[in-house]
C-alpha cells in the first residue's frame, strides 16, 4: 500500500494518539514535555514527507496525497483529505512550530503540565485537520474543534486574572460566526447534496449551486465573516489583543492568521469566486486600513504583548490585501506571506516569552538597556525585527513585495490609492519595531533589569530559535523553493478572475519570477 | 319534552368549566385549591368526551373518561401525599411562600 494515501491521516493521528497517551501517563517530572516533544517531532518528520513527494508538475487544482472514504452515508459526509500547493507548506509549518512550542513551554508551564500538553496536542490535531480536510463538514469539524483547546489554554494558563474573560471572549468571537457558517454549509448541502469541496468548486465554476443570487450572496458572506473574524480582518479584531496578551507563548504562536486566511483562500474563493470578486474592493480597503491601523496602534502600546498583537493585525491585513487583489503575484505573495509571517510571528512571540521568563513583565517602561547583558537575545530580536519590517534578503520582504505588486495590478476599483496607503504601513512597522528595540534593549537600565539577574539565551532556547532564524534567511534568498508549490494554487485562484489588462502591469517581472520557479 | 340540546352547548358548558378551572389555577394561592382547579379542568374534559361520545355514538369516548377518573384518583393520592410532605417541611400551603428557589 502506498503511504502517500495514508500520510495525511497519519499526520493527524500522531498528535491525537500522543494526547491520549499523555492522558494515560502519570504527570511526573519532565515526562510530559519530553513526551510532547517526541510526539511533535515525529509529526514534523512526517509532514516533511509532503514537500519531498509533492508532484510539482501536477495539474493545477488537483489534490495530492488524497484519501477519500465515506464517513457518514447519509448525509453524505466523506473523510476526504488532500493537500495542494496552498496547504502543503501550511501543514509543514504547523508541524515545525509544534516542537518549538513545546520547547518554549518547557520552563514556563510548571503546574498542570498534563492538561497543558494534551490541549496543545489537540490544538495541533485540529489545525492539521483544517489544512488537509477537503470535505466541508470534516473541515468545519476541525475548524470548530480548534477553538476549544485554545480557549481552555487561554482560560487556564493565561497570564493574569483576566484569563477567564479573555478565553470566553475568544471563544465567542470564534464560535458565533462559525455557527452562522454552519448554516451556510447546510444551505449549500441542501442545494447541492454534497459537502465535497472539489465537487462544490466545480459546481460553483459552472454556476450550478443555486439560481438564487441573494441567497448565494448571503451564504458567501456567512463564510467570509466567519473566516474574517478568525484572521482577524480589521473591524473584527476585538478578541485579538486580549487573547494574545493572555495566552501562553506556545498557544499564541498558532493563534492568528493561518487558519482564517487559509479558509478564505480555500473555501470563500473556491466556492464563491464571483461573490469574492465582488466584495474584493471592500476587503482591499479593510486590508489597507488594517495595516495602518495595526501599525499605529502598535506604535502607542506600552505592553509588549499588545504591541505584538497589533503587529500581527497589521501583518495579516497585508495578506488580506494581497489575496483579495486576485492577481497571481498578490495571491502567491499572500500565501507565501502566511508562511513567512507565521514564522516571524512565532519568533517574535518566543522571544517575548523568553524575555518574560527572565523579567516577569511585558511592560516596556520597566525594561530598557538590556542589550549589554543579553547579547544573544538582542541579536535575535534584531534579526526578527528586520524580517518583520521586510528587509530584503529576509523572508518578510518577498511576501510584502509580491503583495504590494499584486495589489497594484489588481483589476478591482480603488486599488491604487489603497495600495499606496498600505505601503505606508511598511514604514510604520519599521518605526514601531525599531523604536521598541530601542526602548527595550538600549537606553537607560529599566526597573526590572536593574533588580534582577538574567541569563542569556540557553541551549534549549537556541535550539528553538535557530531553525527559525535560518529559515528567515533561506526563505529570503530562495523563495522559489516555496513559491513553486504555492504558485500552482495562486495561479488557479487568479484564473477565476475574468482576465483583463494585466499585461500593462509595470511589475510583470516579479510575477514572471514566480512563474519561473514553477518549472 | 323532546326538546333537544345542541351538542355544542355541552361543549360550551365544558369550555366554561375548563376556563374557570384555568383561571382558578392561575389565581388561587392555596396549593390544595390549585389542585382542585385541576380536577375541575379534568371534569370539563370529561364532559367534552361524553358529549362527543354521544354525538359519534362511540363508546370509546366514555371509556376515555373512565380512564381519566382512574388517573385522577391516582394523581390525587400522589398529589395529596406531596402536599402533606410540603406542609411538613414548610408549614404553609401558600404558593407564594413556597419560593426557596428563585433566580
Amino acid at each position, binding site marked *: 500500500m502506498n503511504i502517500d494515501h495514508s500520510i495525511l491521516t497519519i499526520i493527524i493521528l500522531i498528535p491525537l494518539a500522543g494526547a491520549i497517551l499523555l492522558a494515560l501517563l502519570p504527570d511526573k517530572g519532565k515526562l510530559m514535555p519530553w513526551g510532547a516533544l517526541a510526539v511533535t517531532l515525529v509529526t514534523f518528520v512526517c509532514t516533511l514527507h509532503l514537500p519531498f513527494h509533492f508532484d510539482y508538475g501536477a495539474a493545477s487544482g488537483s489534490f495530492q496525497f488524497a484519501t477519500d472514504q465515506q464517513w457518514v452515508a447519509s448525509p453524505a459526509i466523506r473523510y476526504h483529505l488532500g493537500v495542494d500547493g496552498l496547504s502543503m507548506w501550511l501543514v509543514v509549518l504547523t508541524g515545525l512550530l509544534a516542537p518549538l512550542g513545546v520547547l518554549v513551554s518547557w520552563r514556563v508551564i510548571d503546574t498542570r503540565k498534563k492538561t497543558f500538553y494534551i490541549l496543545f496536542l489537540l490544538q495541533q490535531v485540529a489545525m492539521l485537520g483544517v489544512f488537509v480536510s477537503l470535505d466541508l463538514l470534516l473541515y468545519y469539524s476541525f475548524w470548530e474543534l480548534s477553538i476549544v483547546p485554545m480557549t481552555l489554554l487561554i482560560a487556564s494558563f493565561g497570564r493574569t486574572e483576566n484569563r477567564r474573560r479573555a478565553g470566553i471572549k475568544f471563544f465567542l468571537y470564534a464560535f458565533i460566526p462559525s455557527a452562522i457558517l454552519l448554516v451556510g454549509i447546510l444551505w449549500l448541502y441542501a442545494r447541492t447534496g454534497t459537502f465535497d469541496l472539489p465537487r462544490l468548486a466545480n459546481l460553483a465554476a459552472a454556476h450550478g449551486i443555486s439560481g438564487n443570487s441573494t441567497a448565494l450572496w448571503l451564504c458567501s458572506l456567512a463564510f467570509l465573516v466567519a473566516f474574517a473574524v478568525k484572521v482577524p480582518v480589521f473591524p473584527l479584531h476585538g478578541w485579538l489583543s486580549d487573547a494574545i496578551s493572555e495566552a501562553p507563548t506556545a498557544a499564541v504562536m498558532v493563534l492568528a492568521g493561518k487558519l482564517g486566511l487559509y479558509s478564505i483562500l480555500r473555501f470563500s474563493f473556491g466556492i464563491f469566486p464571483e461573490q469574492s470578486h465582488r466584495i474584493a474592493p471592500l476587503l482591499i480597503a479593510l486590508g489597507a486600513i488594517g495595516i495602518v491601523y495595526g501599525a499605529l496602534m502598535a506604535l502607542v502600546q506600552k505592553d509588549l504583548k499588545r504591541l505584538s498583537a497589533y503587529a500581527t493585525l497589521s501583518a495579516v491585513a497585508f495578506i488580506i490585501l494581497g489575496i483579495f487583489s486576485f492577481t497571481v503575484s498578490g495571491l502567491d505573495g499572500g500565501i507565501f506571506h502566511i508562511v513567512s509571517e507565521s514564522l516571524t510571528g512565532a519568533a517574535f512571540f518566543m522571544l517575548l516569552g523568553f524575555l518574560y521568563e527572565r523579567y516577569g513583565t511585558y511592560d516596556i517602561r520597566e525594561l530598557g538597556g538590556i542589550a549589554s547583558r543579553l547579547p544573544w537575545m538582542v541579536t535575535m530580536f534584531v534579526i526578527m525585527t528586520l524580517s518583520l519590517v521586510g528587509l530584503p534578503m529576509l523572508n518578510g520582504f518577498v511576501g510584502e513585495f509580491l503583495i504590494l505588486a499584486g495589489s497594484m495590478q489588481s483589476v478591482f476599483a480603488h486599488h491604487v490609492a489603497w495600495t499606496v496607503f498600505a505601503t505606508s504601513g511598511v514604514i510604520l512597522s519599521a518605526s514601531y519595531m525599531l523604536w521598541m528595540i530601542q526602548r527595550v534593549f538600549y537606553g537607560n537600565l529599566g526597573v526590572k533589569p536593574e533588580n534582577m539577574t538574567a541569563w542569556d539565551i540557553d541551549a534549549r532556547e537556541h535550539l528553538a530559535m535557530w531553525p527559525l532564524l535560518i529559515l528567515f534567511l533561506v526563505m529570503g534568498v530562495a523563495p522559489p523553493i516555496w513559491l513553486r508549490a504555492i504558485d500552482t494554487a495562486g495561479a488557479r485562484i487568479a484564473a477565476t478572475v475574468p482576465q483583463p489588462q494585466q499585461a500593462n502591469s509595470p511589475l510583470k517581472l516579479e510575477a514572471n519570477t514566480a512563474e519561473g520557479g514553477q518549472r | 319534552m323532546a326538546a333537544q340540546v345542541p351538542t355544542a352547548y355541552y361543549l360550551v358548558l365544558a*369550555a366554561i368549566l375548563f376556563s374557570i378551572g384555568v*383561571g382558578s389555577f*392561575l389565581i*388561587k394561592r392555596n396549593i390544595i*385549591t390549585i389542585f382542585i382547579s385541576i380536577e375541575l379542568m379534568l371534569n370539563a374534559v370529561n364532559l367534552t368526551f361524553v*358529549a362527543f361520545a*354521544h*354525538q359519534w355514538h*362511540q363508546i370509546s369516548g366514555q371509556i376515555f373518561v373512565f380512564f381519566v377518573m382512574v388517573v385522577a384518583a*391516582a394523581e390525587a393520592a400522589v398529589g395529596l401525599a406531596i402536599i402533606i410532605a410540603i406542609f411538613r417541611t414548610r408549614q404553609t400551603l401558600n404558593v407564594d411562600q413556597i419560593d426557596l428557589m428563585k433566580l
Partner: protein
Amino acid sequence: MQLALFIIFGALAVAGALNLLLQRHPINSALSLVVVMMSLAVLYWSLGAEFLAAAQVIVYSGAIMVLFVFVIMLLNAGKEEKTTGSRAAYIAGFPGAAAIFCLLTFVFLSEQKALGVANLGGHLNSGLNNIEELSRVLFTKLLLPFEVTSVLILVAILGAVVLARKEDQ
C-alpha cells in the same frame, strides 16, 4: 326534558365552578367542586353514560374529593391570604382564562351545525346497555390500556407510601 336537565344542572355546575373560584377557604372550594361533579353526573346520565354517572359519583365525589376534604381537615388549612403574588396572578389569570374561553366557545359555536344535537338517553348501540357495551370494548379493543392502568395504580401506591413515610427510618 333534555333541555331542562341541561339548563338546571348546567347552571348548577357553572354556579359551583364560580363558587369554587370565589370562595377563599379550600374546603368550600372542594365542596363546590363536589356540586359541579354531581351536576355533571346528571348530565352524563342524560347523555347516555349511566356507568360514568355512577363512576363519577363513586370515584370522583365519593373517593377523590373525600380525600381532598380529608387532607384539608388534616392539615387544618386556613383561608387564603392575599399576597403580592395574587395580584400578579389576577392580571395573568383572568385574561388568560377569558381568552381560552372565547376561543373555545367561538370554535364550538361556529362548528355547531356540524356537531349535531343530543337526545335524552342517547343510546349508542341498540340492544346493549351502556355497561355491557363499555365493558365489551374495554376488554377487547382497549384491553392493554386497562391492564396498564394496574401499573399506574401500583406507581401511585408506591409513591404515596414513599412520600408519606417518615424520613427517620
